């Protein structure tokens, strides 16, 4: 026998289920209850940087859109600073910039969209820089543990990004890169997330 380690164990995950909206976006479930729903304003009014719109769908293994998905996003500001006290440059974040979004899909089409600013590059490990990216967390009925991935930008040089370069199969790296276009004068990045099968998105165990 040895001494026992006294660590607790992480609470196990369970699926968010089909009615996740009740708790996290009740307006979409069909009723108003809170003074304000959270995660609807990612960048705030005064953030510097390029204003962008990100759209996409989450697709299942048959290619069918997941119509009851909920996404959360986490990103740095245009200078690559996170609105979190452990970012060494935290004090320089613009008022109103939170960097966090909560997004739900359209119940009929599965399409989702959000508006934010394009983040800047931020520090990686061991002095490397990470290309600009937005972290995603994806939950839905049928997803037993929230899935984590990253979205990078097609108009940026991502060739030195240490995370993309960890993806062993080159052909899968493109699943992390959103395609830029201009629609009616708005900068739009399109980012589909494929849960399973051909072009399955690279998910991360963080």
């Amino acid at each position, binding site marked *: 026998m040895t001494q026992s380690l*006294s*660590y*607790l*164990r*992480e*609470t*196990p*995950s*369970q*699926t*968010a*289920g*089909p*009615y996740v909206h*009740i*708790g*996290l976006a*009740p307006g979409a*479930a*069909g009723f108003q209850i*809170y*003074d304000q729903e*959270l*995660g609807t304003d990612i960048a705030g009014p005064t953030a510097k940087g390029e204003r962008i719109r990100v759209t996409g769908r989450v697709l*299942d*293994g048959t290619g*069918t859109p997941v119509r*009851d998905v909920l996404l*959360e996003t*986490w990103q740095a500001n245009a200078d690559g600073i*996170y609105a979190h*006290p*452990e*970012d*060494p440059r935290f004090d320089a974040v613009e008022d109103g910039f*939170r*960097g*966090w979004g909560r997004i739900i899909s359209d119940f009929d089409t599965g399409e989702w969209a959000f508006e934010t600013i394009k983040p800047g590059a931020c*520090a*990686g*490990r*061991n*002095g490397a820089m990470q290309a600009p*990216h937005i972290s995603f967390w994806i*939950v*839905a*009925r*049928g*997803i*037993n543990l*929230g899935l984590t991935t990253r979205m990078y930008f097609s108009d940026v040089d991502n060739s030195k990004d240490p995370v993309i370069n*960890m993806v062993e199969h080159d052909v*899968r790296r493109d699943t992390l890169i959103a395609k830029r276009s201009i629609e009616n004068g708005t900068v739009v990045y399109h980012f589909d997330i494929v*849960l*399973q*099968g051909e072009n399955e998105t690279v*998910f*991360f*165990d*963080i």
Partner: protein
Amino acid sequence: MAHHKGPLGEFYMRDRQRHPPALAQDYKTSVSRSPRFAALSLDQTVSEITGPTFGHGDIAAIDNDLIKNFAQDGDPIGERIVLHGRVLDENARPVPNTLVEIWQANAGGRYRHKKDMYLAPIDPNFGGCGRTMTDENGYYFFRTIKPGAYPWRNWVNNWRPAHIHMSVFGTSFTQRLITQLYFEGDPLIPKCPIVQSLPDQDAVDQLIAALDLNASLPLDSLAYKFDVVLRGRRSTLFENRLEGN
């Protein structure tokens, strides 16, 4: 969380064998929604060890009282309960000032959701969601009614045990967690394919809230206690070069 500037250590590696696998054959919806490739393990960076923060300005005081937060002309029908507990990390340290959100069916097992078509009635005085911030000791509480069991289409006669969904943030994107809590003594727990997606009985037990008579309110409400454990964090005994060079 202390307002510490500069990088602290990584969070402990997630024990993925503590969680349900992505593919759980008997929970049918997971079959087409589960990745086939293994998740790529990532050394944490500032993108992972940070995460959204919330304050009391984000929520209202009544948001944790599901008996009153949607009441129209009376209280909701059902068994009145207090749900309380602590949010801790794997080092048993409290996680203060973190957002806890819950949602649930009403006493008849019906959700207030435009997609729920179960024949049990909507309760006009019950919304079914609440949220709160943990205090400086990681403690939280809600007042609500005990949700009912309800049928769902998986096999032809599956019933979900009574449960409350819970969403917790912690201090970093790595700690984000959604789970469901069940109630002590419910005979439907071992029958449920979603519960059975868990790897072992110990994991199931961690999701069963205990009847807590000491916290009940005599002549008013029963109480259930449910502690949540989020991932713990390394102490940086040695420089781990998370960010520096």
